[in-house]
């Protein structure tokens, strides 16, 4: 099968976890992006709404847009205004715009961008074109190239940070697109803005040298777990546009009456923080600065998607979840009742409990007749249950009752969130409560942004 072609047919739905190399390259040579209206897109819609088959990489696009202006900026008036702006910012103990926080993970890059909305006329006038165009570009689009997405529904509006009011935007793109991103930074002459690029996640280390040599940019590298905790606590504090950031599931053990309920994280400590990205890290957090990494597992979001791709031929996280939502894992997994005919009473195990994940697949007949949807579902359930099981054990070992699950694995993934909520509740006999946060995977990036604001605040 011609994969590149098939992806085109899917309306450019190359998702955040998956990039097709050939496809990306083609995409970067397209033409102008249709500016979206900025309306709230949620779930799957976000991935296909603005990028048509012929849409271009906006990174590339920006390069074209601003080439001329770059030349203008070399003139001395522009230099002067930039200098004045910086001085002013430093005087007010504020870093100069643009304000970015970046979290470069194994699969996804998460970018938060603070868009100031309280720009005075004077500022507006002094703002270099370069900076202005970044702002316009980011805020007027919801998709960037084939694979970049702005999660409009997560935008935090009218937020005050460091004395400025603005909107916080949440953008993600696959880590595979990093080279293009860095190239854009170079083409844009981003280094001339003299902003500090705060980055966390493994990619901050991996790509540090590329940023330096290709784009003349120095990264301020930050620890991903520090950022995660700072970002999480900040977003929880400011709330989600007047609503709580945090939620849980009421009646998790009953599929009929299980409902999502908002809540607050007042008195958040101690909490067990389970961050499910490509892999999983589990932290015991005792205060904003006192925490330890308890353990981690390599069976995470990357495993779910990786196995799904191999088993079903799917290509994106969205696709994998879509299939999983239609499947039935009991055709794949062996249950206790498949072995014992009912409950295994000697050990108090319910007949409906999974005895062996993929256990039915030992039989060739069953392998030959299984559907992709069932396989996707079983993969999702297996990974999710395993994370739940390890998290629960850690919570018991660390004597912590509140378990907070974050990370992009949980994005548009109610199957997993409900399953985790159920697993925590059931196996702990109601002792443990699973909590979730609306901004799932963005806390590291938010934490990085906060670090930017902090570094300049303490001279």
């Amino acid at each position: 099968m011609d994969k590149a072609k098939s992806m085109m047919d899917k309306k450019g739905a190359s998702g955040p976890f998956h990039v097709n190399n050939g496809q990306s390259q083609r995409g970067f040579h397209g033409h102008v992006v249709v500016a979206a209206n900025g309306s709230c897109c949620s779930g799957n819609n976000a991935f296909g709404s603005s990028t048509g088959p012929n849409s271009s990489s906006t990174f590339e696009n920006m390069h074209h847009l601003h080439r001329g202006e770059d030349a203008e900026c070399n003139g001395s008036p522009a230099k002067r205004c930039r200098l004045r702006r910086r001085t002013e910012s430093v005087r007010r103990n504020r870093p100069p715009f643009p304000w970015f926080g970046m979290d470069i993970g194994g699969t996804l890059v998460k970018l938060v961008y603070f868009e100031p909305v309280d720009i005075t006329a004077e500022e507006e006038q002094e703002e270099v074109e370069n900076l202005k165009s970044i702002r316009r570009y980011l805020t007027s689009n919801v998709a960037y190239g084939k694979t970049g997405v702005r999660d409009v529904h997560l935008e935090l509006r009218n937020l005050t940070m460091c004395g400025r009011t603005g909107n916080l935007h949440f953008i993600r793109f696959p880590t595979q697109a990093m080279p293009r991103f860095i190239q854009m930074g170079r083409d844009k002459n981003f280094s001339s803005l003299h902003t500090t690029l705060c980055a966390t996640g493994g990619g901050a280390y991996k790509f540090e040298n590329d940023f330096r040599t290709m784009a003349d940019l120095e990264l301020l590298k930050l620890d991903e777990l520090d950022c995660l905790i700072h970002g999480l606590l900040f977003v929880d504090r400011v709330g989600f546009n007047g609503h709580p950031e945090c939620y849980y599931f009421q009646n998790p053990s009953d599929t009929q009456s299980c409902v999502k309920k908002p809540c607050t994280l007042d008195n958040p400590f101690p909490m067990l923080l389970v961050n499910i990205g490509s892999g999983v890290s589990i932290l015991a957090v005792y205060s904003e600065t006192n925490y330890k990494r308890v353990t981690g597992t390599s069976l995470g979001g990357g495993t779910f998607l990786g196995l799904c791709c191999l088993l079903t031929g799917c290509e994106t996280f969205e696709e994998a979840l879509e299939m999983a939502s239609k499947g039935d894992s009991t055709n794949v997994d062996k249950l206790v009742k498949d072995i014992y005919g009912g409950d295994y009473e000697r050990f108090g195990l319910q007949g409906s409990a999974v005895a062996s994940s993929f256990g039915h697949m030992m039989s060739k007949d069953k392998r030959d007749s299984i559907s992709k949807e069932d396989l996707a579902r079983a993969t999702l359930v297996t990974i999710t249950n395993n994370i739940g099981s390890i998290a629960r054990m850690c919570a018991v070992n660390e004597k912590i009752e509140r378990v907070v699950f974050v990370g992009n694995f949980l994005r548009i993934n109610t199957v997993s969130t409900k399953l985790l909520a159920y697993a925590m509740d059931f196996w702990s006999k109601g002792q443990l409560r699973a909590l979730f946060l609306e901004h799932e995977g963005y806390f590291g990036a938010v934490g990085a942004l906060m670090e930017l604001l902090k570094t300049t605040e303490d001279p």
Partner: protein
Amino acid sequence: MAECVRVDSSTSTHTMDKSITLPPDEIFRNLENAKRFAIDIGGSLTKLAYYSTVQHKVAKVRSFEHNTKEAASDKLYEISVQEEVTARLHFIKFENAYIETCLDFIKDHLVNTETKVIKATGGGAHKFKELIERKLGLKVDKEDEMTCLIKGCNFVLRNIPHEAFVYAKHADSEFRFQTTHPDIFPYLLVNIGSGVSIVKVESEDKFERIGGSSIGGGTFWGLGALLTKTKRFDELLQLASKGQHTSVDMLVKDIYGGSYGSLGLTGDLIASSFGKSATADKEFSKEDMAKSLLHMISNDIGQLACLYAKLHNLSRVYFGGFFIRGHPVTMHTITYSINFFTKGEVQALFLRHEGYLGAIGAFLKGAEEDNPNQYSWGENYAGSSGLMSVSPDMNPMQRARSGTFDMLEMDRLERQLVNLPLLQDPSSYIPDTVDLTEDALAREYWLYCFEEALDGVVKRAVASQPDIPEATERAEKFRQKYRHKLQTLRHQPFAYGSLTVRSLLDTREHCLNEFNFPDPYSKIKQRENDVALKYYQKAVKSLEELSWEQRQFALVRGVLAGNVFDWGAKAVSDVLESDPEFGFEEAKRQLEERPWLVDSYDQWLERLKGPPHKCALFFVDNSGVDIILGVMPFVRELLSRGTEVVLASNSGPALNDVTNGELQILTERIAAMDPVIQAGLREDRLTLVQSGSSSPCLDLSRLDKVLAMVVRERQTDLVIIEGMGRAIHTNYYAMLSCESLKMAVIKNSWLADRLGGKLFSVVFKYEVPAGKPSQDSAALTPS
């Protein structure tokens, strides 16, 4: 989940030719006398257990009536060979494909059994229930799988030394056997069947499933089959052993470019299993995917096991189930995972007889009325196949074995065995001085040495039964069997636990017994005892003429010279064969002059100047000159000093070592000549006990319960161990909580060389445990 895989017809695809013929003598031994059966049918293997009585010959000694006028017969005692019936447990493991053939065979040979029921366990028990009932005419009685597993596990841990081992892929010896802790509880058993069950075992009857996981062997198999289109579990493991997981897994360095230093996560660590298969539009090799899957599952199980071990504060974690079952690949990945997650605090332990646990447990459930747990049992090396490695690359012999039968036999020991109460730390006591599993040079030498000595042993065996014509044939069978064992051990030194000189000797004894040579040296012992007795009085008299200090030295030299008479040592047996007149005085001349190779005689002498010991426990060695002219005068001196003496000798024959039966007669005879010995016996200050062993070596953690009791009652404060087998091959480094004296003459030039000495070098090792300084003797010097 714990259950073995229930097999769908499609998974057990490798059906065998049903018309196979079994080599019955080799496999279902003693079926005629079998009673009580149990069967454990797993996903691909069936394990059959039965109990039988074995008739075999034993040598008995009986004293002549010496007060009658039969002085003409200069024989001291008569030797008779009697039939004895002992109990044995048989366990046989074979592929499910053979089950029908095997059942037919059993039915045909089953004559004496009154059994009506067969205990069954395992996932396949249900499937074959009807077949078993029809073929054997026995009612199948199902037992809970986990209960059987735990019962079996307790049984092997208690009865088989070196049952548990640590697996170290890259070490000199892959298998590092553990000494069984005297208290086997509590422990964690992680059973990896199609799912995983984690069971905490606190006592014989108290265990609890504290957790588990659905990601287990079934996940590896099922998911692996989907990913690689490979049907069989073994093939999947083989694929995995050839793969590179780094092309499929996302490593820390793939994300960080290197390590994640602040968390101490190295770059090679897997950050996301299968993380790369989601991002690249490319094909992955079957091998790589299988490897990645194996790591994923092993790591996950290891992590859970560690979390549970930590929560329940347990440090002994045994792994079993079909996922493990002797597969080096999975043992390695599980070990790696446990080391990683506990930073070495918990060791992953595996069991040599892991595959038999269910069958053993089911059998024990059925045999509860016989109370098998009140006895001690010993692995019969002659009748057991030993641990096999299943990696095809590791050993070509292996391939030939798959599809054949694997056996374990355990003999019921007449006596219950316990620790010597005087061991300083029973949990760290290791009887053997050199582990030949780890020491390749020593292994090569000793295997060669035992092979060289084989002709002599065969000759001796034939000579011991001069009136039985078919003895030659049996001796030849013995030769073949033992030689085969030696060959197996050359390739798989780990087959029966740690390979040691002791295990080589014991294996030889087991093989001799197997072919009804219960005591090849009985006649030699008899003759030598006779001769030595004649010199006893003279020897005692000449000792009494010496000054106190001279006498102490002469007594020690006497024990050492006596110890030269050892048919187990080739250097000596060659001399003894060619020169029957080789005597005590010649032996004394052969001895090394002081200072000896190991020489703490001065400290011993100083000690003797102090107060007498309360009670000495003396582990004796050879018959003849050794016991009569060496040991007895020494014992006599101890008694005269006011020290009680407990003489511990073997329960059964081994080489020319004096047995308890023989020693009783000898002691009576000596008592008749020597008032000191007589008084000792009469006043109960000289006691004879049996060691519980039939080995030329000595395992102080498996001694007769009565011995342990006597030692405790008499407040024993001195342990004397004599001879190369007991004091050098074993116990050389044994730490006791009281004073100890280890005396031996090195009668093997290779060993002498290793220890820095030469042939007939002397080891005289007197030790006082730390914190118990030897007596200040100045004020107490006897006149």
